[in-house]
């Protein structure tokens, strides 16, 4: 036992003596949360919008008013002809142009339909999609009311856009769970794989192997400090999101922490697996970053919904642990659901942990070669 404690003490000395590691461990998660929370906000507020009103009647004016007063948009310019559209985009402030056809009001009253075009700046696809969605929603709303006023017959079923759980579509509600998921796997896997390969590279592994330390002691000794630190990290991130964004944890805190422990453990074992596959720190870092970070971001459903992906990616994403944890954490934090809804994902993570541990212990060499 003394042996093992001595080993853990040594690991902590490595960590605390290396300011860069400490910074990566605690600084980067905090920075990520703040950056994602503030800067990369996916809400639109005061997006520039221009109007080309070829009809100029009561209805188009009312609709324009509605759109501007929604609070999402700011009117940049009133255009006079189609040729102005291109120019106004080039100025850069305008993200979308709304065009009412001529005789818009007349047509709507007499024929029951009129056409309105939204031209969005496709060079910023995210903003463009959002602007398009928001305007469509406002127009539909208006359309519905107008139709309701006129006659019941013309009421059409309108797609209703309503946000459950995140009624204001606040994007940090989405991002905090995503960042926790990403940060944990990255840091845990990266740190453990680097710390083991470092011993190989500096030749100290040779001496450890020739000592009476057993492989499982070496592995656990490497994992334990990071397990503790990562767990502290989770608590810090949750506290940070609560104080800065007021993000509550709707479900059970105990369950959330327990699930986080499981996920941390899974990531740590994955790190050990990476270290047994790589001979140098460089390789370990490369595998962790390129092999883990990119797929985690792209395929976990963190940014791009899995439902919209081609089937192949869907299958690939099934082996990505973050995919499951993101479901778990969102369920607990935002929806407030219990284990009954997430037992499947939990089970998958447990199996993954067991498999990674099994392979690493088996692959961890008691000799060189």
């Amino acid at each position, binding site marked *: 036992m*003394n*042996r093992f*404690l*001595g*080993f853990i*003490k*040594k690991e902590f*000395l*490595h960590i605390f*003596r*290396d300011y860069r590691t400490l910074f990566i461990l605690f600084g980067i998660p905090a920075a990520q949360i703040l950056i994602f929370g503030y800067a990369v906000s996916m809400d639109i507020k005061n997006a520039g919008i221009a109007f080309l009103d070829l009809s100029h009647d009561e209805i188009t004016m009312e609709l324009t008013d509605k759109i501007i007063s929604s609070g999402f948009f700011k009117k940049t310019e009133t255009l006079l002809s189609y040729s102005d559209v291109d120019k106004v985009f080039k100025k850069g402030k305008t993200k979308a142009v709304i065009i009412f056809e001529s005789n818009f009001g007349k047509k709507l009253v007499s024929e029951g339909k009129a056409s309105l075009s939204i031209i969005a700046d496709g060079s910023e696809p995210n903003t463009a999609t959002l602007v398009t969605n928001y305007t469509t929603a406002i127009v539909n709303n208006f359309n519905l009311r107008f139709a309701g006023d006129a006659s019941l017959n013309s009421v059409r079923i309108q797609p209703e856009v309503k946000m459950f759980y995140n009624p204001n579509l606040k994007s940090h509600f989405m991002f905090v769970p995503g960042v926790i998921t990403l940060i944990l796997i990255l840091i845990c896997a990266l740190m453990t794989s680097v710390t083991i390969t470092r011993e190989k590279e*500096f*030749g*100290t592994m*040779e*001496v*450890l*192997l*020739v*000592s*009476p*330390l057993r492989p499982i002691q070496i592995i656990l000794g490497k994992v334990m400090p990071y397990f503790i630190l990562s767990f502290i990290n989770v608590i810090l991130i949750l506290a940070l999101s609560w104080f800065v964004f007021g993000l509550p944890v709707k479900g059970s805190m105990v369950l959330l922490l327990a699930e986080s422990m499981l996920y941390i453990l899974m990531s740590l074992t994955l790190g050990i697996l990476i270290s047994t596959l790589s001979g140098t720190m460089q390789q370990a870092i490369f595998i962790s970053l390129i092999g883990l970070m990119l797929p985690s971001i792209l395929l976990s459903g963190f940014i791009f919904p899995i439902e919209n992906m081609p089937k192949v990616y869907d299958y690939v994403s099934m082996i990505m642990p973050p995919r499951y944890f993101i479901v778990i954490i969102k369920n607990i934090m935002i929806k407030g659901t219990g284990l009954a809804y997430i037992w499947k994902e939990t089970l998958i993570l447990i199996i993954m942990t067991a498999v990674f541990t099994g392979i690493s212990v088996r692959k961890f060499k*008691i*000799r*060189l*070669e």
Partner: protein
Amino acid sequence: MNNAIESSGLSKSFGSARAIRNISFSVDESEIFGFIGPDGAGKTTLFRIITTLLLPDEGYVKVLGMDSVTDYKKLRKEIGYMPGRFSLYQDLSVEENLSFYATVFGTTVKENYDLISDIYSHIEPFKKRLAGQLSGGMKQKLALSCALIHKPRLLVLDEPTTGVDAISRAEFWTMLGKLRKHNITILVSTPYMDEAMRCDRVALIQKGEILAVDTPRKIMLGFSRKLFSVKATEKYRLITALRQFPATITAYPFGDSVHATFTGDIVDPGLYDHLKNNGVTHVSVNETEAGIEDRFLELMNKTA
């Protein structure tokens, strides 16, 4: 007397490259046994097999009476190993490195302090300094202290003197000599021939094969011819001229002279004229005693 190490027919290949081939030797208890040979001769591979880090393809080695393959767990408690690159944690202090290795082997620095005191006392004034900031000689002493801290019965040192200055090397060998009184068997490797003289017995190793095993003295006496040391002002011309001389068998530069052997083990009087005609001046020829390196060269030429 018991054998501390006994090996028979050890061979090991990495892919198509043969690292060592049919190595058999034995080391007596409490002796300093040196493996002398250039880089790539197979010294490190052999040491890794002895320290249970590698499995041999063929043959066996018994270390302290235990088999290196089957008894590796027991054996690992008895070996102190210092790999080629001083395996210290650069970001831990001198003191922390030492106490870490002590706990790993289930002991304390205090318990075996008397064993390392000779060596550790040189670096103790700097015990708070990080290992990464030590000079080469100090690193070497710390690594040796770490390898000794659990009082091993066998100490395996892989090229402990590479990259260390001459004074530290001399100190290092003196320390190894002092360890003799603790009944520790020491296995050491070096590419430098002159260090052979500090060992009780040595094995000359080249291209994975042992060329000779004996005391340094006897290895030197094994040189089969009379050896002459030839000096002159123009060294390069001297070497080329000596080689052109018909009675010359070998001529190798050796420091400030050229070591040469001649047919019949005599200096043909015509040599002086020959050298003079080739523009070599101030020639002196003296018979000299062959060193380990002379013998190594002779053995290399025989096998080549």
